[in-house]
């Protein structure tokens, strides 16, 4: 228990510090604590349900809608966060989650629009296609690393640009663009069939969909794999010290490749959740760098699958709710600022370790 607290403290303390600093920043820049409080309350209600409005005689939608938006973002952040975290565990730094997400999203959009199947099968096939797409896109860097020693940071980051140019600058605006009647423009690919949409858990009231369940399941599964299975243990051993692992008979190359495949598949699934959950087509551009946010989620979550889930739930909420701060004159990118600052503080792990040593020192111990 104490170990868990010690591991989680840097993240929790960083997030809280970041929130307080940003609160004060709004207060200073936007004319007082009052505005800052209004803005932060608006963000909270926008993230976790507008309870004041609900109790003021509003409909349940006041609570369920914001929850749906938060869950959608949290699901994507969880999956990209897990993608980065799983690569971390074998000692690889997969910066290519964005590219893998783009490829996965496109695969989901194409299968969703191009194939006709019964609902359950269709959704499963789209998810499978997205996971396969993301995994295949991560396979290249994994093989290069394994057989040629090419550093995965270089290869994955370059492949991000390849994916972006290939998908958004050519396929989506060219051969795969939806057709319309007359001179009207549609942004992106053709709309997916209704059977390919991730089921909405609450009907039309909210966009809350099965994506969040998928994300939670993925986090739990990954946690079990890493802690309860031999394969997962081998991955961790490779991450801790590849030479020692090799000496003890672990096939390090295979661990690299299989972990990268899982990493790519998770990022691909994140893309699928975006397309099948809310967008229903590959839009002209995926504006958000969710793949890079995944790095933040992995670091703030301390590389632990459940930590990633927790941090994604929080920041998914803050980012969905943060839009409302605009009503109080706060810039649209403010939630990202909170996240960035928290990340910066987490990086100062040594500082927090000192703090935690002092706070959690066993009584009577040295």
């Amino acid at each position, binding site marked *: 228990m104490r170990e868990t607290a010690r591991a989680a403290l840097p993240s929790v303390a960083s997030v809280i510090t970041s929130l307080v600093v940003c609160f004060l920043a709004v207060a200073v820049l*936007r004319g007082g604590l*009052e505005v800052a409080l209004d803005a932060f309350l608006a963000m909270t209600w926008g993230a976790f349900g507008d309870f004041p409005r609900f109790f003021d005689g509003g409909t349940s939608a006041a609570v369920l809608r914001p929850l749906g938006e938060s869950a959608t973002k949290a699901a994507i952040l969880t999956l990209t966060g897990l993608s980065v975290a799983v690569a971390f565990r074998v000692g690889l730094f997969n910066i290519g989650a964005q590219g893998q997400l783009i490829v996965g999203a496109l695969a989901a959009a194409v299968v969703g629009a191009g194939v006709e199947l019964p609902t359950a099968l269709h959704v499963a096939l789209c998810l499978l296609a997205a996971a396969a797409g993301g995994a295949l896109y991560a396979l290249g860097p994994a093989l290069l690393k394994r057989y040629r020693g090419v550093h995965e940071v270089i290869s994955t980051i370059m492949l991000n640009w390849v994916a972006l140019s290939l998908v958004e600058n050519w396929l989506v*605006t060219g051969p795969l663009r939806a057709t319309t009647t007359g001179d009207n423009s549609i942004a992106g690919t053709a709309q997916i069939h209704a059977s390919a949409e991730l089921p909405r858990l609450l009907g039309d009231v909210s966009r809350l969909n099965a994506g969040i369940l998928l994300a939670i399941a993925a986090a739990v599964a990954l946690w079990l794999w890493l802690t309860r299975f031999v394969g997962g243990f081998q991955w961790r051993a490779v991450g801790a010290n590849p030479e020692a692992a090799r000496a003890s008979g672990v096939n390090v190359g295979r661990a690299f490749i299989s972990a990268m495949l899982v990493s790519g598949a998770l990022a691909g699934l994140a893309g699928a959740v975006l397309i099948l959950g809310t967008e229903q087509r590959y839009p002209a551009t995926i504006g958000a760098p969710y793949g890079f946010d995944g790095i933040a989620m992995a670091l703030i979550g301390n590389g632990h699958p459940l930590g990633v889930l927790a941090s994604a739930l929080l920041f998914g909420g803050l980012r969905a709710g943060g839009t409302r701060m*605009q009503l109080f004159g706060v810039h*649209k990118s403010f939630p990202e600022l909170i996240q960035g600052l928290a990340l910066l503080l987490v990086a100062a792990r040594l500082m927090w370790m000192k703090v935690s040593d002092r706070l959690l020192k066993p009584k009577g111990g040295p």
Partner: protein
Amino acid sequence: MRRALLLMLLVAGGCKKSSDAKDAAPKPALTVGLVTDIGGRGDQSFNDSALRGLEVWAASASFKGGRYEAMAPATREAMIPAALKARVTPVSLKPLVVQSKVQEDYQPNLQLVVDQGADLIVGVGFALENAVEAVAKQNAGAKFLLIDSPILDAKGAPQTLPNVRTVVFREQEGSFLAGALAGLVAKQKVGFVGGMEIPLIKKFEAGFRAGVKTTNPGAQVLVQYTGTFDNVQHGKQVATDLVAKGCEVVFHAAGSDGTGVIQAVKEARAAGKPVFAIGVDSDQSHLAPEAVLTSMVKRVDLAVWQAIKDLEGKAFSAGDSVMGLKEGGVTLAEVTLDFPGKAEALAKVKALETAIISGAVVVPSNEKDLEGFVAPAN
């Protein structure tokens, strides 16, 4: 530390009460919401034009440091073109602008503005089409204005909703005049730089080609698409290429890429080449006064203001509308540069404008119509 936090909460709590008291102050009669696309505030063209219609023309307010300040009447007047000064009157309203960070935020942002009790919600850009459709269906009591696209069903066919007004522009008509002027200024070659190769931008291209064909049938039109709307460098590259191939006038419909186009033309002029640029959406002459011949202005601001004015006068109607030269939806910005034969050239363009408004000339809006286009005698 704990004491400091407690103190802060107390102070904040105290402040909260005073804000409740402030809510009792009289409110403007109307609240008008606006949701931008990803481009957002400060794009120098499309979103800014819509924001101008709402904030300056209607609300007479300027957005500074996160809040609205009343704008001096003279400042407001200066931001309205001469031809519209008498018509565009202020409306007492509270603007409520929400910018979109990412694609999937369009729908919650629109819903947020609806929940704030907005009487009219403006969705800026065809990218918001799906979101406006979904939110309008769920909030039958709210009124919407969608810019640049009709509501489309899943198959891409237009449909109408009882609480949504949509405005599209006949960009081809303004582009036709730009082409006509380019044909008169240039001798042999003119260039067109498009952003994404989508039907909307094809309208600009078709109109421009038809205009060039009308005034200078022998001229060659070189066309390039950048594939993006947010890559200034790419726009510059493409335009430099066109200038090197001998284009004397380059027209762009490429969003932010276009500022690169204008930059390239400006540099070519500085190096001694006689070449002009034609801007798009807003009057872009301030970007390079010596190089920008004119701009094909799209009056998104007018469309937004008109919807607000109709709402104030209880005359807001849903349905699709189209704004071309006749309705003042597109127009050429004033030509302030001098070139040989300017007076005759402008007179010819004016005559063509009259012909389009009267319906004597129908400007093609796509490649197919362009093939069958017969240039009017002039």
